[in-house]
């Protein structure tokens, strides 16, 4: 598994945690100054949304790769000669050898 998505994921988590702390700080600032809460500052909103997208991207890459669901996925570009070549079914001494006319030795 690649390291890069995990790094992306970690950065995203730190970023969203930082945004949460900023929001808490903003709330306490409003409380101390006895102001009314209308909305969060724009930079906190933007940072939260961007870190959500980053985390989503990281999760999607950490989760692994999709597999092709067709059962014949790996067999499409194989010829019949390759495919029927099963070593367990090789016959080296067939019993018909004893009645074959043109069999040497």
């Amino acid at each position, binding site marked *: 598994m690649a390291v890069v998505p995990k790094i992306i994921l970690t950065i995203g988590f730190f970023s969203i945690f930082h945004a949460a702390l900023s929001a808490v700080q903003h709330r306490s600032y409003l409380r101390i100054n006895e102001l009314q809460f209308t909305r969060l500052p724009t930079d906190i909103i933007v940072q939260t949304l961007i870190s959500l997208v980053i985390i989503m991207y990281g999760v999607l890459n950490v989760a692994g790769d999709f597999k092709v669901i*067709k059962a014949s996925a790996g067999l499409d570009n194989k010829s019949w000669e390759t495919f029927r070549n099963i070593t367990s079914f090789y016959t080296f001494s067939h019993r018909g050898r004893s009645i074959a006319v043109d069999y040497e030795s």
Partner: protein
Amino acid sequence: MSAKSKQVTSVAYSESAIRNNLSIVEYCRTSMAALSGCTAGILGLTSLYGALFFVCATITVWLMFLYKAGFSNWNKYFISRKSLLTSGFYGQLFTYILCWTFIYGMVHVY
């Protein structure tokens, strides 16, 4: 009924590959529900805005799945594109609400 009028192309699917893909999707969607819940809590969304945010997040993740699989050949990896969007919607909604209310309480109430 002639054979010509009823042409059903049957395709054999690999069960383990389908299960692998769906478990990846489930993993991503569950973490998406939790994380977008946290985001909604930080943003301090209330009432219907939160629900709207969840719908937006679901659609975004769906588009990201399609992006990851490739927009033109998603049917190499999934049987149905619609069920990719709608499956487990309510289960994830509750995960979302749990994280939403928890983080909202942590950030904005206390």
